[in-house]
């Protein structure tokens, strides 16, 4: 059974029209149909956070959202963070603090930190705040410390103006 639905959405600032099977989840749609393979699939159970993208600015597990539910929404994926230009400050800080190793969880981590940066609205975050925010992104390589340090550099007390 193929239950086709036409959808119109914005992905990384660009309009997209597509016809999708109802059961296609957003992660698979981004990866297979739009060839945006930077969004990774780590569990398909909504637990690991590798597939995190922003939907209208809010972080979501793209494996738990249907592509058809993205109709009319604005999606940001890792490919939209810096494009081909200079790395975004979050990306650069992750590299500086060795906040990534294999890099599989990294796009999801960056999307979580993007939302955190927006939500803090210029405020200062503690290490506990940052650790709580990152707790929905599993990483097997880094022990999280490099990511936490990268976020502390950008959002922590030392970064306050």
């Amino acid at each position, binding site marked *: 059974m193929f239950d086709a639905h036409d959808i119109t959405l914005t992905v990384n600032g660009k309009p997209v029209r597509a016809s999708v099977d109802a059961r296609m989840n957003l992660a698979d749609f981004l990866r297979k149909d739009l*060839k945006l393979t930077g969004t*990774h699939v*780590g569990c398909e159970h909504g*637990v690991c956070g590798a597939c995190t993208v922003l939907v209208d600015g809010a972080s979501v597990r793209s494996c738990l959202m249907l592509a058809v539910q993205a109709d009319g929404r604005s999606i940001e994926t890792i490919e939209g963070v810096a494009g081909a230009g200079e790395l975004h400050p979050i990306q650069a800080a992750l590299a500086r603090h060795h906040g990534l190793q294999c*890099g599989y*969880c990294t*796009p999801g981590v960056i999307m979580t930190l993007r939302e955190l940066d927006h939500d803090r609205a210029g405020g200062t975050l503690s290490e506990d705040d940052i650790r*709580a925010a990152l707790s929905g992104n599993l990483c*097997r390589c880094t022990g999280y410390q490099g990511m936490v340090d990268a976020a502390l550099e950008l959002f922590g007390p030392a970064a306050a103006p």
Partner: protein
Amino acid sequence: MTELPKTQADPHLRWIGRNAPRVEDDVLLRGGATFLDDIAMPEALEATFVRAPVAHGLIRGMRLEAARALPGVNAVLAFADLRAVLTTDRIPLALPAGGLRFDVDPPCLAIGEVCYVGEPVVLIVANSRRIAEDAAALVELDIEPLPAVVDPVAGLEPGSPKARLDTPDNLVARTKVDYGDIAAAFEGPAHLVRETFRLNKGGGHPMEPRGVLARYDALEDRLTIWDSTQMPHRAKAMLVASLGLSEHQVRVVTPDVGGGFGTKAVFHPEELAIPAAAMLLQRPIKWVEDRFESFTASIGERDQVWTVEAAFETDGRLRGIRGHLRYDHGAATPYGIALPFNAATNLIGPYVLPAYRMDIDLCLTNKTPAAPTRGAGRPQGTFVMERLLDRAAAGLNIARDEIRRRNMIVPAQMPYTIPVKQRDGSMMVYDSGDYPQCQSKALDVAGWQDFPERQAKARAEGHYIGLGLANYVEATGRGPFESVGISIGPSGKVVVSSGATAQGQGVKTMLAQVVADVLGLEPASIHVVVGDTSATASGLGAYASRQAVTAGNAAFAAATMLVDKARKAAAELLEAAEADVEIHNGMLQVKGVPGHGRSLQQIARALAGTPGFALPGNLPPGLSAASDFMTSGLSYTNGCHLAEVEVDPETGGVKLNRYVVVHDCGRMINPMMVEGQILGGVVHGIGMTLFEWMRYDAEGQPLTVTFADYLLPTSDVVPRVEIYHLESPTPLNPLGVKGAAESGTIGAPSAIVSGIEDALRHLNVRIDTLPLTPPQLRRLVRAGART
């Protein structure tokens, strides 16, 4: 061999010893990497497996018609279908191992009998994964259940059912570690400690599961396999043997790999089934393991049951340890018997153990086969020794640090030989290290001396804090060799290729740093190719914390040879004496005559040859060099971990407040990346101690098949890990490096458990099981409170 100076602060070294930015990061940060499932091959079909739903049973029949009839399904294949392109029934995985009574090589799809839940039985190939899974739901397996073996102790009892009908019994191997006069050690007055320890199963669980993409090119009669593996050359060997091809017909490539941790070292059945199907169907086929499959079909380990006793002098010095280790090997032997042997030998640790006898029995069970997972048996052995030391310290009223100090091997004893024969036939020799200093530094950093005061103050305020201590060693840099080739063609590009493989460790950066130093270049300018069997004829890959040791030194040797050749050619071209030519910023120039020189590219062009003209100095053509660094022994990394914990005795909850590591892996090529390895290792060890437990029920059904049930440590439960280094370079290789990838995992369980026992010392809590769950701890608290 050229020997580098022994101190890190070497002004001649621009890159080795520095935190060079990783060459891997940019593309990973942008989401532009190519992991297996990212490979664009629109013509590839997608596959799934129907897997054994029971732990043990006989396949009486299978109904495949409905699945075959589903639109979009290309093939539904059982073993008999694939056998047409296979040379043998079983994958020839067996490693030579003393003590192995029989090999249990797995087939790529079950033949008549299923021996663990998750064993692949039927392969479905379809236009998409969704359709393949729809078809899988239509397959009916008629399986006659057989009794399952789920416990390695019960499985070795007489009268136990057999885990496999094709083996004589469940005792797949019996071996021992045995030296010194163990009977004498237990004679006469001594302080005896007797314990039973049970360590339970966990896994590697890389964030990217396994995956294989195979394409058979009929025109070239050549098979290319993209495989998310740590060991592509071994995968190639398995494919060549199993498919009856010659070496030139098989290429195995690793794309970007999202973590390994041992899970991707062993060749799994799917790595043969998918290429075999691609040959049979003459279509490219991709299979990407999903997380559910990963929990049931990927290897794991750590199930061990130890009954041990230790004899101590009354001053706390060890006289001997003896006991029995029973080990759950799962349903096959994909990696010999390395795990229990590692466990038993790593028990010795940094201590003088005069007599030792450990009898080791390996039991086949109806669980996913066991193979090395970060630490590879060593955390368990270390756990046993460290627990025994804590028990003796308490019994003899000696401080925990002091009993360790009294037993430690001291630097003057290095190299220190332990009369235990290893896999390669050599004796166990600790090459270097200063164990007392390592512990002493860790105690200082963690505030060991003042801790009892802090502990008493916290307790007065209702907080139960404890400080745990553990020492360990790790045999790293396992051989026999690793390959590195360096070539500079007329383009001037420096290409380094190696049999080493990368799963996140920063192998490319590490190799680039070493080569950059020798060639006087920037690491970012060096192109490193790893994980491609067409780029290096031989190689081994990632296992046993070995690649900085083996590939790092191979790169150093190859780069040195390449510079020697370039110098000879430059001397010829510059009409200078070879001894007067030096390399600087990629230029070969005459000393004292800046600007008078040739670039590496110019030399490469000259050595590429011109038709009819002689090569400079009649040197052999090409500016390239290759080295297979062959190890002359294992280099022993060591460390001391201190874990400060807070226990909630009312709930059994444990919080990690602070974690200190003092680590010695010899010279560090990139300290930032070494620390990344230690951090990840420690957190894996935290998981093993408090969270991760691959559980099965009494019938062998796995109970933890999602990340919601199998708990990985998250950012909000791990502490900040403070890392300090000692650098005792090993004399066993020119760079003086030792491995660092698994060390963090080895020390963590022992340190954390020691801290928990310290926090609850007033209740005499003794922990003998891993992982430690809150209900278990609560039970121990209640039992302690009653006494």
